[in-house]
């Protein structure tokens, strides 16, 4: 173990008090991190804690508004990804971007392929260089094959090989293990350790505590865009890290009105989709808010998509009010009374160029048809009614939704589903990217809907939202439901443990 030497190693990179705002949104308030050569630093924090913004600053994607940034003893301000690369920083993303049509070797060396005497690319040497890199990493990989169809694990290895070929001294791995299987994680860790022992500084971001404890030398925790603390891994417990991460009281922003629960409206039984999730069973009753919690990538959205029929399911059944739904048929889901407010409202929820009225009426386009023709006035009337109910701020029903603010867009999405008078409403990340004012409005609205007897399935990555709103919390981890918690059992810790599936080890 080299923990004791870590603090004496040379400082590879330090960032202090970095702030980054996007318009009115503060993404990072105090980004602070210190990396030393020959160490693996883990960075922990909830979704939205500011980790990705910090990574993007290191990568040169974003320039921080304030803060002191030193790499290899030099003050830096990266203006582009190239600047960051030039200073020896390489970032491995969860899902690397490769060119699927180019060979593995070429993906490593694009733009700096070795040339022969004629000034042409020396494909042989390029492949050999790539092969040497993979040999160094100790992984078998054919440099001549096309990158198309490579697993994410292999794609990451290509990125790492590229980083080595660029002589990177600092390696940032942004949730590299999220989509990897056990063996692949082991292989990645082996590579990471050998790079560390060769003197590289590695920043490792993961939600899995067992990995963090296993791999890192030090752990930095962030919360709400701020640096909280840095610990030596061998001196700290998972409990402490979790406390640092969630360390806030669930406030009373979410006035849960107790509603009498009615009949079971949505029943999901042993739902499965090969390679994505399996054995998902739960029920939602009228008037109940069930939260589907878990980390990004745990398969929550995929479950919702399969329930609604956007994706085909491979196993299991879905019943709405006692009637079975056919697989892969959203129209049938809508007719039987499901509404789905998707997570990406700009791409999935709205047709941005169409007006508020058209968007609101899109779900009801069949209902407004008289002899096949849409009654425009009825359409507008309904849209106006729902816009008023939800207090959508728009100058007219003809305004294109692209000109509305994020919060108001979300209200239009809600309006278009509420107009169908659904029995079940699935809401994926109801308040992502919405300003605080509208956020609490949306929360109040969801509560009200439940109060009127609607069954609500809410997917959320924000713990306070989950804990404040839900009657029951289902926690998913890697495609499985790992916990069903009642309102009184659900605490930040219990949800976080189930989401990272570390309860069996650490609690």
């Amino acid at each position, binding site marked *: 173990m080299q923990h004791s030497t870590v603090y004496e190693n040379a400082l590879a990179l330090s960032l202090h008090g970095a702030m980054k705002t996007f*318009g*009115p949104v*503060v*993404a990072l*308030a*105090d980004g602070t991190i210190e990396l030393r050569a020959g160490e693996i630093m883990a960075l922990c924090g909830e979704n*939205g804690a500011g980790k990705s913004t910090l990574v993007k600053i290191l990568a040169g994607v974003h320039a921080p508004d304030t803060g002191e940034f030193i790499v290899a003893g030099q003050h830096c301000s990266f203006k582009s990804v190239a600047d960051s690369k030039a200073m020896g920083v390489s970032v491995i993303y969860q899902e690397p971007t490769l060119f699927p049509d180019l060979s593995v070797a070429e993906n490593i060396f694009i733009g700096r392929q070795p040339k022969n005497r004629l000034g042409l690319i020396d494909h042989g040497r390029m492949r050999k260089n790539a092969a040497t890199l993979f040999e160094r990493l100790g992984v078998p990989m054919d440099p001549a094959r096309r990158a198309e169809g490579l697993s994410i694990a292999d794609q990451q290895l290509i990125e790492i090989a590229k980083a080595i070929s660029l002589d990177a001294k600092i390696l940032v791995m942004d949730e590299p293990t999220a989509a990897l299987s056990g063996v692949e994680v082991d292989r990645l860790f082996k590579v990471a350790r050998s790079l560390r022992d060769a003197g590289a500084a590695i920043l490792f971001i993961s939600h899995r505590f067992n990995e963090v404890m296993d791999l890192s030398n030090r752990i930095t925790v962030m919360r*709400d*865009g*701020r640096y909280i603390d840095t610990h030596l891994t061998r001196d700290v417990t998972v409990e402490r890290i979790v406390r640092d991460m969630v360390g*806030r009281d669930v*406030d009373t922003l979410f006035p849960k009105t107790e509603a009498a629960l009615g009949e079971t409206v949505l029943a999901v039984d042993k739902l499965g989709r090969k390679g994505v999730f399996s054995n998902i069973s739960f029920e939602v009753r009228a008037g109940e808010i069930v939260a589907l919690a878990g980390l990004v990538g745990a398969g929550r959205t995929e479950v919702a998509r399969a329930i*609604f029929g*956007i994706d085909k399911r491979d196993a299991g059944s879905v019943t709405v009010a006692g009637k079975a739904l056919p697989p892969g*048929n*959203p*129209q049938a*889901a*809508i*007719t039987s009374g499901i509404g*789905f407010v*998707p997570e*990406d409202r700009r*791409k*999935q*929820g*709205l*047709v*941005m*160029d*169409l*007006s508020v009225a*058209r968007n609101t*009426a*899109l*779900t009801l*386009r*069949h209902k*407004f*048809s008289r002899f096949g*023709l*849409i009654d425009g006035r009825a359409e507008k009337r309904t849209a106006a009614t729902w816009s008023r109910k939800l207090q959508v*701020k728009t*100058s*007219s029903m*003809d*305004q*294109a939704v692209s*000109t509305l603010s*994020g*919060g*108001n867009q979300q209200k239009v999405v809600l309006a*278009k589903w509420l107009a169908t008078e659904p029995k079940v409403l699935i809401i994926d990340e109801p308040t992502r990217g919405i*300003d*605080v*004012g*509208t*956020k609490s409005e949306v929360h109040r609205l969801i509560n009200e809907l439940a109060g009127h007897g609607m069954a609500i399935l809410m997917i959320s990555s*924000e713990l*306070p939202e989950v804990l404040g709103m839900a009657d029951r919390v289902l926690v998913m981890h890697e495609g499985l439901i790992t916990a069903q918690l009642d309102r009184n059992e659900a605490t930040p810790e219990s949800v976080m443990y189930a989401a990272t599936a570390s309860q069996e080890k650490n609690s």
Partner: protein
Amino acid sequence: MSESATATVDTSQALSGTQDVRGPRWYTGRDAIMVYILVVFLLYAMITIPRFATPVTTGFLLLDVIPTLLIAMPMTLIIITGEIDLSVASIAGLSSAVLGVMWAGGANIWVSMAIALFVGLLAGIFNGVLIAFVGLPSLAVTIGTLALFRGLALVVIGDNAVANFPKEITAFASSKIGTTGIPVMVIPVLVVVVFFGLLLHKTAFGRGLYAMGYSKDAAHFVGINEGRSKFWLYVASGLVSASAGIFWTLRYTSARSDNASGLELTVIAAVLLGGVSIFGGKGSVPGVLAGVLLIGSLNYALRLGRVSDVVLVTVTGLLLIASVIAPSISSAISTWRHDQKLRRQLSDEATATAVN
């Protein structure tokens, strides 16, 4: 969360009071501009070109644009969904060839026409299955069927031309309504235009097409069946193209394998000129109607005005380029102005808080 550093300040509300955002009005929209250009051009042509404003002119002009106009209708809907159909002119050619061979083979003229239509239907189904259900890119498929259907036309009729169609029918195809100079055929064509106009603008199906063209995901989420919609559009395109082929045959009293060849590009040019976005999601039937008529009358006027036949194509091309570049330029300008306004507002707010 409000206690946290990620707290957000909602400037959008502050701005919404001052921002003057209006929805598009019908008289300032892209379609309206096309109509204005068309009207201005027609007035100009009537005044400056001696024989433009006569029934004869009207008649020939309209007869000339009928095939383009017909095919432009399903093409509009197809392009709005983000696809394309390059095989339309070949389908017209194939139906013309089939019509000729059936008639020459002794079949009843109505039976021959029905079979020609049926062949168009099959052609549309073929395209539709490959694009909507197999999921092939429409550009590539219809380049293939462009060759295939034209090839089949050759197989059917070869080098021959069939010309001896019944006089009363060919005469009817170019007959006029009284002395107005307006061809009788305009009536069924108008029916087709109104049908597609209503289909696109006034039905649930049409709403779905826009949604699909803008975002397949968004369409999927409201239960729109993308495959089925596209399939029917290609079937419609096949049928209408075959009708255009039949009209072409009767109007020029000649069934040949190369009838209407190259028409696909004219149609697409007219549709794009009419304001339909090649990316999908935008466009309207009135706009396309204006686009088709503008190209048609411009060509006719130039011909009447003794501008050599040959500059016509250049004008079509320039119009097309101008029509796609204009939005790029205007959107660049409006983004710039929007930014300026925002910047001014922010600096005003900054000074205001500084004073406080």
